């Protein structure tokens, strides 16, 4: 009962936050509200006993990405206020997507159903053997680093590549080279 009440409370807060994200026109407040949104999401994950996911969401979603978004927003020129010109196509799109989601939700297994497909595949095996074999209580770490070591290696490389891409695009060295290139061209002429 407590679980349901807390979930209801958090999800209604999520709805309120979404409404205000939709209503505000200032970029910085949208960034702040998005941070609040992800923090609420991580509270919902804690309520669902997914502590590791909640931790990641709180650190990455509401921590670092909010800071990076604030930095990016500070670099943008002060634009005109966002006017919603033609609402009709977006309303149709939103209604269609929500209809599809509602249809999918009715086909999902119930929350915590032991016969759900996800609980019948490899998860029972992992839960049974991982503690005796690894002597590490956190099964999430075992799965992440050992059973699924390749996936995590791939994720690390993805983060590394993303960092490389941003450095290549945004660092002042590349900008310097571009301006030098332009200068050289002018000199040749």
């Amino acid at each position: 009962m407590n679980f349901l009440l807390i979930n209801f409370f958090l999800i209604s807060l999520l709805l309120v936050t979404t409404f205000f994200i939709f209503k505000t026109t200032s970029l910085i407040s949208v960034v702040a509200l998005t941070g609040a949104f992800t923090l609420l999401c991580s509270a919902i994950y804690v309520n669902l006993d997914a502590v590791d996911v909640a931790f990641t969401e709180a650190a990455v979603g509401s921590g670092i990405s909010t800071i990076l978004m604030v930095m990016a927003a500070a670099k943008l020129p002060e634009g005109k206020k966002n006017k919603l010109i033609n609402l009709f196509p977006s309303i149709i799109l939103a209604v269609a997507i929500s209809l599809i989601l509602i249809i999918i939700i009715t086909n999902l297994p119930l929350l915590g159903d032991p016969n759900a497909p996800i609980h019948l595949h490899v998860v029972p095996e992992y839960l049974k053997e991982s503690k005796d074999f690894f002597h590490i209580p956190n099964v999430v770490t075992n799965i992440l680093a050992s059973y699924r070591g390749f996936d995590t290696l791939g994720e690390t490389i993805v983060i590394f590549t993303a960092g490389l891409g941003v450095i290549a695009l945004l660092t002042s060295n590349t900008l310097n080279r571009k301006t030098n290139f332009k200068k050289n061209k002018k000199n040749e002429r």
Partner: protein
Amino acid sequence: MRDKISSSPVLSVVSKILFAPIIIFGLYVQFHGDYGPGGGFQAGVIVAAAFILYSMIFGLSKGETLVPIMINRYLMCVGVLLYAGVGIVSIFLDGMYLDYNVLSSDPSTGQHIGIILVELGVGITVATVMIALYHSFASFGEINE
């Protein structure tokens, strides 16, 4: 952005007080990930948050003296190479790629060593990439002649 965001003493004192505890908490999350929630990804982000806080409050120039850009870039590679290197080492010890059982005479201990090293690699890469992202965002637009 290169200068201080504000000269308020409250901000600088509070961030000086918070800097060390944030890093210690990040290390706790990193090395306690086997026993509680946490791991390389979260720890990397938390440690990066401490450095980002420092360069936000004291200015980007001071942040860059604290974490020099080139060292930060080398560390990005070190993290990925540490992860991939654990796999290579296990190949040389007659195992499969990323098979931690062969890292020690006892398979369970080998798994422990492997997981801790791999998580450390993830943590280093995530932390340095986040710092690099912040620095490139913050220094974007200024051209050093």
